[in-house]
């Protein structure tokens, strides 16, 4: 009698184990499914809507079919470049500080700052950039958009630079110092020079993140419907253009929103995967 109860209890435990396994498998499917659906819709709708004029033409007036997003593609490149020009030097400098002077009190504060900064909602960053750039300049501008994106890129660049520079083995630092080089030369010519290619992947990761941001650009770069290279005036970007088109009632604009999303996804996923691939390789090799 008691033996039988025992066997049943064992069966009960086995059922629980199998059920649990099933639930984890179903969850994995539930996570992958949206990814596949999004990829499918973006590729089917987007690739189908794509044509040469999308890259070479500007938007047509409302109601007319056709036109493209040339201005937004170029605008995204310009604004992301502005952001990178601000964020990269500052970010790498902070990365150096964190990796070379990691024990100082300031380092710990900076680390906390970076963590908190990466958690700031992007819309709040947009409002901040509006307040410090758009208000004094009295105009929406590509520059303001670049400032907003730089604040988004900054924590990513600092974190990846720190990680990458920390992978430089200590004996290389010591070897440099043993040669009688001052520390700044060791940092500049041994540590930084040897890591430049790796640091670039961190920058690509940050760019891939910033290029997809919409919220911080809504009231900084704002957007327009014509070609502009003037960084002191509003400039269109892919994400904002997609947003404008997506919530519009016009079928042809919605079609173009998908095409824009397709281009944006391809760019971002390609950059992201590339950077990830290189970063894992670096980490597997432990630096050099």
């Amino acid at each position: 009698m008691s033996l039988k109860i025992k066997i049943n209890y064992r069966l009960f435990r086995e059922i629980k184990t199998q059920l649990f396994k099933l639930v984890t498998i179903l969850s994995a499917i539930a996570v992958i499914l949206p990814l596949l659906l999004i990829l499918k819709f973006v590729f089917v709708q987007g690739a189908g809507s794509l044509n040469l004029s999308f890259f070479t033409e500007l938007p047509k007036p409302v109601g007319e079919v056709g036109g493209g997003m040339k201005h937004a593609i170029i605008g995204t490149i310009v604004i992301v470049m502005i952001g990178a020009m601000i964020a990269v030097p500052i970010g790498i400098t902070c990365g150096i500080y964190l990796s070379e002077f990691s024990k100082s009190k300031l380092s710990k504060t900076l680390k906390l700052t970076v963590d908190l900064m990466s958690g700031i909602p992007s819309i709040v960053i947009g409002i901040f950039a509006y307040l410090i750039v758009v208000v004094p300049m009295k105009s929406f501008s590509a520059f303001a958009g670049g400032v907003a994106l730089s604040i988004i890129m900054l924590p990513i660049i600092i974190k990846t630079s720190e990680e990458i520079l920390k992978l430089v083995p200590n004996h290389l630092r010591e070897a440099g110092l043993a040669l009688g080089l001052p520390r700044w030369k060791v940092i500049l010519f041994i540590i930084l020079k040897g890591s430049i290619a790796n640091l670039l992947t961190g920058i690509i990761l940050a760019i891939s993140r910033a290029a997809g941001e919409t919220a911080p650009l809504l009231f900084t770069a704002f957007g327009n419907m014509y070609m502009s290279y003037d960084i002191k005036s509003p400039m269109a970007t892919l994400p904002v253009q997609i947003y404008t088109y997506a919530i519009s009632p016009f079928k042809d604009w919605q079609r173009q929103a998908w095409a824009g999303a397709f281009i944006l996804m391809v760019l971002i996923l390609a950059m992201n995967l590339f950077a990830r691939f290189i970063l894992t390789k670096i980490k597997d090799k432990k630096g050099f």
Partner: protein
Amino acid sequence: MSKSELSEKIILEAKNLEAWFGDFQAVKGIDVSYHERTINAIIGPSGCGKSTYLRCLNRIHEEIEGTHVRGQVLLEGQNIYDKKIDVVDVRKRIGMVFQKPNPFPSMSILDNVVIGLRLQGINKRSTLLEVAETCLKKAALWEEVKDKLSSLGTSLSGGQQQRLCIARALAINPPVLLMDEPTSALDPIATAKIEELMNEIKRDYTVIIVTHNMQQAARISDYTSFFVYGKMIEHGLSSDIFTNPKEKQTEDYISGRFG
């Protein structure tokens, strides 16, 4: 202990046991039988596959990705690698103590001891308390922890943690207890305590212990096996192995000329 006092009844038997990590064969064709209520030591140079062999005896080895096992292990005549056998049941009957003390960090001392029983659906508090006391006494830990059974298992010292792990293994009352270098992470005093308690628990259990410490093997074991490169070179009464080994390799090893 002389040979005549040892039990003749065989409890565990390995038959042509082999184990792999991927393509690397770590254990090669082991044939051996263990008698009831004896302490059996396994010695050999490090990397000789003795731990892997031990881990095959309760089918823990197969939990590592990319490993597999061939051959038979008979527990009271029954092959534990038989397809019909429940691996959970095997591990219930062949307990294990590891190299590093590993009490569950989020559990109290008491919970650590009785968790094996809980898993089997035994939840009656009086039973659990009773078993915990018995096992902690067997593991010579009761006096030290009886007033703080509800504090965390990890709050104990290393030697106490290892005795807690022994109590935890004893609580499910396995006829066979495997010990994988149980004292290698401990200081000499803690080691002595554990050796002492092994002599006590031998009255009820069969112990198979892997040790890198030859003196320990000579001190506590009834039988000793000597392993090199996954092969068992020699197995016999410890008194014979350490005074009068048959194989040249064994002699070289125990006299310190090799390994």
